[in-house]
């Protein structure tokens, strides 16, 4: 059996002008492409077209409204300068360092917690059917809905701290949401709360898909439960790690609502993420060129992370 040919059923000929093929059959041949065309065209126009537009604007002097006279890379020069203004931190510096902290913690905690919960849930748990939606439901809610509850919970005057004080633990102190150095971690907490259940579901699905015989074999080989997971199960879940990474990266990049609903930007803007920066400059400060430039930098960063992944996943692999 040929390996390459197995991956495809090609009724669609590569040579388009086939002698003797009727118009109808040629239409038939082109049909799959025709079906795909609208979706593809939509991404080309509404994603890549808009990206080009954004890149263009970043080289102009656009303020409140787009202006189309190219004036040079001033927006980038400003961002570049701000990148190194750490004391006092420029908003851009805060945004990108926060992105680093938030991105790293959010993704790694979600992965770890999601995997941990999935493993626990996979131990033939009675009531799994009840627990699963409990872990999963935060993904269903927007932060317009849950932002207030979280704000209360984290507020030292209303939430956890106050409650524990009322219960007698008066030395307890938890005021991260009010603290410029720690507010970003509260964003991490709420973000993890929202997404980790979803990641749990992905891992659970992965665990359920692992061949039981492999597990039995490993047990016969004398692996302890811990070794079983570390050496056998987790390596087998590798593709899910990658998918989860994509989902989380995409959520992390779009975590705009989270910051606004939870912290309104944090003390002195200390909870900003790049998406907040972009929104602020584009819509609030009427510095559209700077906003566009920051969007371009975000997109470039995403590209640098995602494209190698997409490439490795999508290139034709022999089976």
């Amino acid at each position, binding site marked *: *059996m*040929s*390996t*390459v*040919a197995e991956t495809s059923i090609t*009724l669609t*000929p590569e040579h388009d002008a086939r002698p*003797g093929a009727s118009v109808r059959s040629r239409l038939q041949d082109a049909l799959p492409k025709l079906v795909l065309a609208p979706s593809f065209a939509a991404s080309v126009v509404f994603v890549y077209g808009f990206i080009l537009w954004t890149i263009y604007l970043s080289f102009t002097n656009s303020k409140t409204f787009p202006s189309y006279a190219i004036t040079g890379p001033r927006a980038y020069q400003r961002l570049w300068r701000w990148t190194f203004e750490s004391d006092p931190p420029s908003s851009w510096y805060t945004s990108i360092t926060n992105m680093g902290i938030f991105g790293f913690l959010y993704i790694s905690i979600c992965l770890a917690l999601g995997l941990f919960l999935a493993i626990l849930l996979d131990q033939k748990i009675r009531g799994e059917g009840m627990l699963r939606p409990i872990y999963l439901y935060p993904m269903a809610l927007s932060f317009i809905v849950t932002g207030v509850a979280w704000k209360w919970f984290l507020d030292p005057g209303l939430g956890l701290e106050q409650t524990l004080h009322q219960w007698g633990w008066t030395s307890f102190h938890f005021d991260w949401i009010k603290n410029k150095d720690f507010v970003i971690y509260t964003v991490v907490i709420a973000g993890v709360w929202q997404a980790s259940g979803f990641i749990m579901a992905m891992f659970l699905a992965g665990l359920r898909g692992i061949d039981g015989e492999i597990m039995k074999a490993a047990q016969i080989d004398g692996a302890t439960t811990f070794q079983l997971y570390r050496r056998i199960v987790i390596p087998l879940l590798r593709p899910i790690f990658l998918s989860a990474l994509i989902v989380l990266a995409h959520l992390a990049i779009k975590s705009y609502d989270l910051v606004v609903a939870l912290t309104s930007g944090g003390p002195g803007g200390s909870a900003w993420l790049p998406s907040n920066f972009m929104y602020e400059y584009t819509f609030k400060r009427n510095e559209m060129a700077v906003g566009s430039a920051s969007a371009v930098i975000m997109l470039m960063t995403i590209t640098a992370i995602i494209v190698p992944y997409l490439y490795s996943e999508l290139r034709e692999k022999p089976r």
Partner: protein
Amino acid sequence: MAFLEIDGLKKRFGAVEILKGIDLDLEKGGFLVLVGPSGCGKSTLLNTIAGLETITEGEIRVDGRTINDLHPSKRDIAMVFQSYALYPNMTVAGNIAFGMEMRGVPADERQKAIDKVAKVLQIGHLLKRKPSQLSGGQRQRVAMGRALVRDPKLFLFDEPLSNLDAKLRVDMRIEIKRLHATTGTTIVYVTHDQIEAMTLATKIAVMRDGEVQQFGTPAEIYNNPVNLFVADFMGSPAMNLIPATIGSNGSGFSVVMEREARQPISLPLANAPAGLSAFQGKPIIFGVRPEALTDPEGAERNASNIARADCHIEVIEPAGSDTFAVTNLGGKAVVARLRADANIQPGTVTPLAFNLTKAVFFDPATERRIV
């Protein structure tokens, strides 16, 4: 004019040539088996006949009509897949009738056809079930039913038995053979199992790397393999292929095989192929099938050229109907096929009879048969 003709068929996939010029033909009512190891292109070839893959060059004709550019459904073929490819969302009856439905056959006619096929294959009681509720053998039957109901010019089978267990496989093999005999349809059948090939085919094409190595009747392929690959691939247990040299002993040639810690054995060749003269004193590959290497009592009485040699028996494998003995010649384990009751002990030295009329010789450089 043959019923199925394939001329100079080539298939390229980018820079890779998957089929490198295939020429085959099959008479009406014939049973062509495409056999070869994985990746030899046999399934691709079948798919091109079905129209599931395009061809780059060449021509396929069925009953004199070129079908290169026809849609699969227009080629008047039916196909049985390795995985059976039963539509999981439809009942057995729905599966069998789907093709007719697509062609706009009225419902009552469809029902008649289903009933007829169900009777032939004895699957009447399964018609309302979904594929997931069937056993492997039942699925196989339904898949055949789906093909049969079309009454096509050409049946295509893509490794249809490889997902069945050993016993069922033998049963279904016989069933297919019976079906072929009773319906007289023309069949192209892909397998990697040479026993299926031998038992079912009227013609076999042995393929490797996108090329047909040998095309002929099962007997031709078995007895007169054109090269080392075909010799090695066809037959079970496989032909013994022993490194040897050609010596001369007065009137004719002899074949000389080295042995470990013993004298080499030298067997005189009575009617050696003419080509062998060029190899005097040179290494060749000496091919002898296990059934041509027996205990002297079991040797074929009327064979004209039987040579005996004492061999050191290393292992004995009683297989019930036969007993296999393994010895070492020319640095290779060599299998001899003895009678079931042959009284031979491992570790002893026993004379074995070589039936040299059935022996074949290959040039180790070109791997071709020396004739």
